[in-house]
């Protein structure tokens, strides 16, 4: 088991290194001159800058060295958690920008994931539990119907109803817990429907298993069977998908943050891409990669604890 963990961690580090390298290559190959942008104050006229000013900025950002040297220098910095300074925010340390924007996004994504799980489980449970054929077919089709709506549209509809019409919740900003409710629901619904679809499929399959028949024969109530046998057994295979959903929720926060005017990683990276702020874009991409590998690692390690049939120790023939 220890060998397995070490192997997986090594794999995770490899993925992180690959993410760093690929983004580094892509970003530096893009058209556009970061030095110009910096001197021009983001949208200004840098051609009035003297060669001395340009050289000074290049030196400050290490852009005067040959590419492989720049790459290794950056890699070294990142390993020491030094993400450099932002180009579009006038020399602000990128780690400051991350520290400022991570909490609101985590708050948003955290609540969104919670809502996703609750909505998916409740919907799937009810859809596979009801006896009435018409109701069952409606509920089973609801997730597919719900997934057809784009996230930003859902967000704007929620704002219209709950904020503008009923004055219950704020439309924009990040002041107070109230402001996180609508964005979280917006982000969670598409994934909740997606997860619900998988769960419904899984639960329908489990209902056909022989041990369900056994449980019924033993006299267990329908509800108890659904809760104790169907749900847990169907939920397990969805754990991997849930891990991915957590990652996607965080990385897609930009949509909710734009519609609802909230600060966060999503809007930070959107700005960074607009202004070709390479250090910030890299740092956020690395953060996202770290999130993916961490969540996947956790899911992988959780599996044998939840399902004794799954083991990471290779069995001998």
């Amino acid at each position: 088991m220890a060998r397995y963990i070490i192997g997986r961690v090594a794999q995770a580090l490899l993925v992180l290194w690959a993410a760093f390298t690929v983004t580094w290559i892509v970003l530096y190959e893009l058209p556009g001159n970061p030095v110009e942008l910096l001197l021009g104050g983001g949208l200004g006229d840098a051609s009035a800058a003297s060669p001395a000013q340009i050289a000074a900025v290049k030196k400050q950002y290490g852009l005067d060295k040959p590419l492989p040297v720049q790459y290794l220098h950056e890699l070294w910095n990142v390993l020491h958690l030094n993400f450099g300074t932002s180009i579009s925010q006038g020399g602000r340390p990128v780690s400051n920008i991350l520290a400022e924007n991570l909490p609101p996004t985590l708050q948003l994504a955290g609540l969104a994931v919670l809502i996703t799980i609750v909505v998916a489980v409740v919907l799937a449970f009810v859809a596979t539990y009801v006896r009435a054929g018409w109701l069952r077919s409606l509920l089973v089709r609801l997730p597919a119907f719900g997934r057809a709506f784009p996230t930003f549209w859902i967000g704007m509809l929620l704002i219209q109803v709950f904020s503008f019409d009923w004055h219950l919740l704020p439309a924009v900003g990040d002041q107070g817990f109230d402001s996180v409710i609508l964005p979280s629901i917006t982000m969670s619904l598409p994934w909740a429907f997606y997860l619900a679809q998988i769960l419904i499929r899984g639960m329908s399959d489990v209902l056909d298993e022989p041990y369900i028949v056994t449980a019924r024969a033993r006299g267990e109530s329908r509800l108890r069977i659904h809760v104790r046998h169907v749900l847990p057994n169907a939920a397990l295979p969805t754990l991997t998908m849930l891990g991915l959903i957590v990652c996607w929720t965080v990385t897609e926060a930009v949509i909710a943050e734009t519609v609802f005017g909230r600060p966060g990683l999503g809007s930070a990276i959107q700005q960074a891409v607009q202004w070709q702020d390479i250090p910030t874009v890299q740092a956020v991409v690395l953060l996202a990669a770290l999130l993916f590998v961490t969540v996947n690692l956790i899911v992988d390690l959780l599996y044998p604890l939840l399902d004794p049939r799954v083991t990471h120790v290779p069995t001998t023939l």
Partner: protein
Amino acid sequence: MERRRPLKPAGAALLLTLVALLAAGFGLSRSLSNASAKSIAAAASSKPVRGGDLTIGFDLNVENCIDPNQDFGLENRDIDRNLVDSLLDQNPSTGALVPWLATSYASNKTSTVFTFDLRHGVTFSDGEKFNAAAVKTAYDNVYKLGPLSLLGITYVAGYVGTTVVNNYEVKVVFSQPNAQFLQASATTVMGILSPKSYNNTPAQRCLGQFWGSGPFTLQSYTPGVGAVLLRRAGYSWPSSIESNQGAAYLSEITAKWIPEDSVLIGSLNSGQLNLAWPRVALSAANRQLIKSDGGDIFSRPYPGITDLLLSNQTPGRILADPTVRQALQESINRAQIASTVFSPDYPVVSSVLEDTTPDYTDESSLLGYDPKAAEALLQKDGWVPGPGGIRVKDGRKLVLIEPVTTDSPIVDLLQSQLAKVGIQLQEDLVTTAEEESLIDQPGGNYDLAETYYTRGDPDVLASVLDTAIVSSAYVKQSQTAAQQAKLAALFAAGNKAIVPAVRQTIYSEIQNYLISQDIAFPLDERLEVTGVASDVHGLAVTDEGLIIANNVWLSH
């Protein structure tokens, strides 16, 4: 084994459709519920009420900086105008310069030396005194910013220094005539920061680490997200034309950036914003929406350069040919742009300057729409109709590339107008950074670039088009060498002129030259159209359309 009932698709589909219709129906109920819920504003007392938090919604963020000396974007300048004061102010109705932190001003005959007598008793919010030394420090540092101040570098071109004559008198000296400097001294760019502010780096000042003498202080600023301003008690030196000659009525101002326009309007209508301040004029539909929900519309043309296109005349590019440029000028239907993109009563652009700019000249006669004449010109020049309706000459298609950073209905409409005469306008959607690299580097692959600027002085044209002080590639490439020389000479003459009539003649000639030489292609006028909630009173703006929050008060 349990008998499963067969699924009933028809019933399910019907129910889902009903759900969808209900959701749509919510939208219809909106106007009814809102109209009845809004009460008519208390008109009983017109006496200003103290206190309150004015919430403003912007939609566009073009810079991550709040330093008045470095800012050029309208939204941030709106905030800056209430944090710092300037030596002079400009009357929005007449454009005349009036005293503010300077009680009087004078310029010498050659417009190289400007003398200001300074007001006593003014302090900065960090406690420092406003005096001649403070003005010297401020102006020296604006000059030091160089290219970091997009506008400052053109306002103080040729700056030699500021002489402290005595504690309350300064002489600002230039090495070349600079008549436009007087108006510049009324802008936020030449706003006076406290001397201690200049101990911080420009980057630090961008983040808000500075102090001004204005009616509000900056409590917090998050670029592109929001800002909070707090009332400064004891403020008593607004400009001479302001209605409130004391401290602000409001206790707080909150600025928010809301990129989604429908959310911006909805927030105003549902009482979450007091002012909806989008960059582009509110559409007729949105204005109706606001009015029907009990709000009001504040509309005023911005002074400065109209929304126009500059061409790329680099040899080898299609627009280096003056005949094609002339045809292009005649293929733009400006009346259609005004009435279709904005509204039937929207003013049609008539020059490179907005009609509220001093020395504006009506050049409508040069801006006529004549597609037949344009086609004849192109035909004679060898551009014959080709496949897909796009003209071809010597195997080359008449395709013009325009980089844009957001989808624009104006460009879309222009595309269809130009297609009528056989020109294909290729709209390239790029990031801000890419657009910068395209148009700021020589030899960029583009043919047309859009620009405009807000300033209450005709010399704003120089800030954008005078190659003697601006060295951007896209400006140099918009003019041939001969045109550059002619314009530079005209702008220099404009800066020498102190007699208003002479100034008018020169700037008229400049406007005429830019259009008749087909250097600039005006597209539309820029109107400031703001949504105002019914509890906002005393709303006023500077000549450049920036909000003067000191006069504003909120009824409860």
